[in-house]
């Protein structure tokens, strides 16, 4: 087994710990105290658990979570990019229906196992999208 999952665990749990510390810092510094009473309790427990997880990742004791393989990351990236562009830009800029149709067709093209060189497979994709 390579060190890839271990380093990923450190980065992921570190990011969660950072969020926890930020939440706790905001909770304990913002006013009014009464409005932040519940968030203060929650964020304190959040930070303790997040730091515990981060500590375990640092010493390589994390047993749960398979991480992401290089192949999975490469397979996810195009779809994720289409999804994020669709949600955060295209849906508002082009309209939900147009953007949905375009995104549907692009996702189908990206992940359909049928060969990209055949006219028949393109017709099938257009028909499914329609």
């Amino acid at each position, binding site marked *: 087994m390579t060190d890839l999952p271990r380093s990923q665990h450190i980065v992921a749990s570190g990011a969660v710990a950072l969020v926890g510390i930020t939440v706790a810092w905001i909770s304990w510094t913002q006013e009014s105290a009464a409005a932040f009473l519940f968030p203060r309790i929650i964020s304190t427990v959040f930070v303790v*658990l997040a730091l515990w997880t981060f500590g375990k990742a640092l010493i390589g004791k994390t047993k749960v979570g398979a991480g992401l393989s290089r192949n999975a990351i490469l397979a996810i990236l195009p*779809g994720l990019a289409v999804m994020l562009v669709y*949600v955060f830009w295209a849906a508002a800029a082009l309209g939900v229906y147009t953007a949905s149709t375009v995104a549907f067709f692009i996702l189908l093209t990206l992940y359909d196992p049928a060969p990209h060189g055949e006219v028949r497979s393109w017709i099938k994709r257009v028909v499914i999208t329609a």
Partner: protein
Amino acid sequence: MAVALLIPFTFQLEPASGLILLGAAYTSTVAGGAVSAILLKIPGAPANIATTLDGHTMARKGHGAKALQLSFVSSAIGGVFGVLLLIFLTPVLAQWALAFGPSHLFWLAILGVTIIGSLDGSSVVKGLLSGCIGLWLATIGFDDIMGAQRFIFHDSLAGGINVIPALIGLFAIPQVINMFAKGRKRLDAEVLEVERHPVGDAIREVLRRGRALTIRTATGSIIGLIPGVGGQIAGLVAYDQSRKMSPEREKFGTGHSEGVIAAESANNATVGPSLVPLLPLSIPGSPTAAVLLGGLLIHGIFPGTDLFDNHPDVAWTFINSMLIGQILMCVFGLYIAGLAARVAQVPNAVMAAVVLALAIFGSYSVQTSMGDVYIMAALGTGMYFLERFGLSAAPLVLGLILGPIAEANFVQGSMIANATVGIGPYFFTGALNLTMIAVVVASIAYSVWMELRYRRFTTKEDAIEKEEALT
């Protein structure tokens, strides 16, 4: 995921009709998960893991249709028994719920988060961490009492995080990205011969194994009553018991029909009982029950005394409809058993695109706001990566749903406490408070013990392999 995706469709319906739709989906997804478990050896839901052991072997021997028929008939029998338990136990607990004050309701909400947080997964700390993230997300927006802004980093967050887009994002988007992760591969399913099999024979076979069926259904119902345990444990426990107690124990794992009957009757028997703690006490017995809790709150219905005092028509229509739902599920399941092989092979690319589009339409339709769509996508994408590192969506969703209940009762309880006996005695004394604190501590301690046992017998590679197989 199906229940979460259907919630936006209930907005235009009467509360009772909306809940009937969600309840039917809950019942059908547990039973329907057996289709891919039997034909593809991929459990459609965690509750169907045990079904793969004998069900898929039967399908490989050409008995796929028989296995599907057995699974739907035994699911219906188990499900009906479970719903009857719901009907008879709920009024008793509803009366008991009248004794609950703010401090008890606060501890109940914490109990809900800790039980599911500590039992849903093999790491207690990560389960509880997920629950804490959910509780924090629930505090985003304007404070109800002081009107103070809390954690509003973007305009979309000013109104807080709406439960529905969050539910859709947390359950649907990780599935979409999981489909992306498979790349341009065809499904690995073998092309199975699914021969015709008379339905009457399947019903007779299930009834012939009446003793085993009764014991497994009772096992599933009892396990379903325990909040957070879920159908997957019921299915595996029932399968294991059946194998140990059967005179034909050597046949288990080789395509034995009793294995399918045991697993499916037990997992569907958990559906009704998992709602027993939800409806009168607001404790969801399973992640899907937590989503149903979200569905109730959207229609302005709060589980507990409010549900049975002010909306008894909704409560009892919903409960009784689940009984009819079990029968309809069985009829429809038997009808589609022959066609199921084709349905289970819908290409990943089509499924991913359809689910993504539905998730966006569903989130947008809640308040016709793109802000909700952004929240759905951001939470869903984040959840996918968190899941790869051992955090799970169920406790996070529960934290998000139970957070406002916990905070409202905590604030209300604090006010009463400050005016009377003080916070310490108000929250930490009294038989009911102490009982619930004891259950919270016991559930965490039990989970830590189970985790230690799991680690002793499981290597890191085994754990990763098991997780990859399940995802």
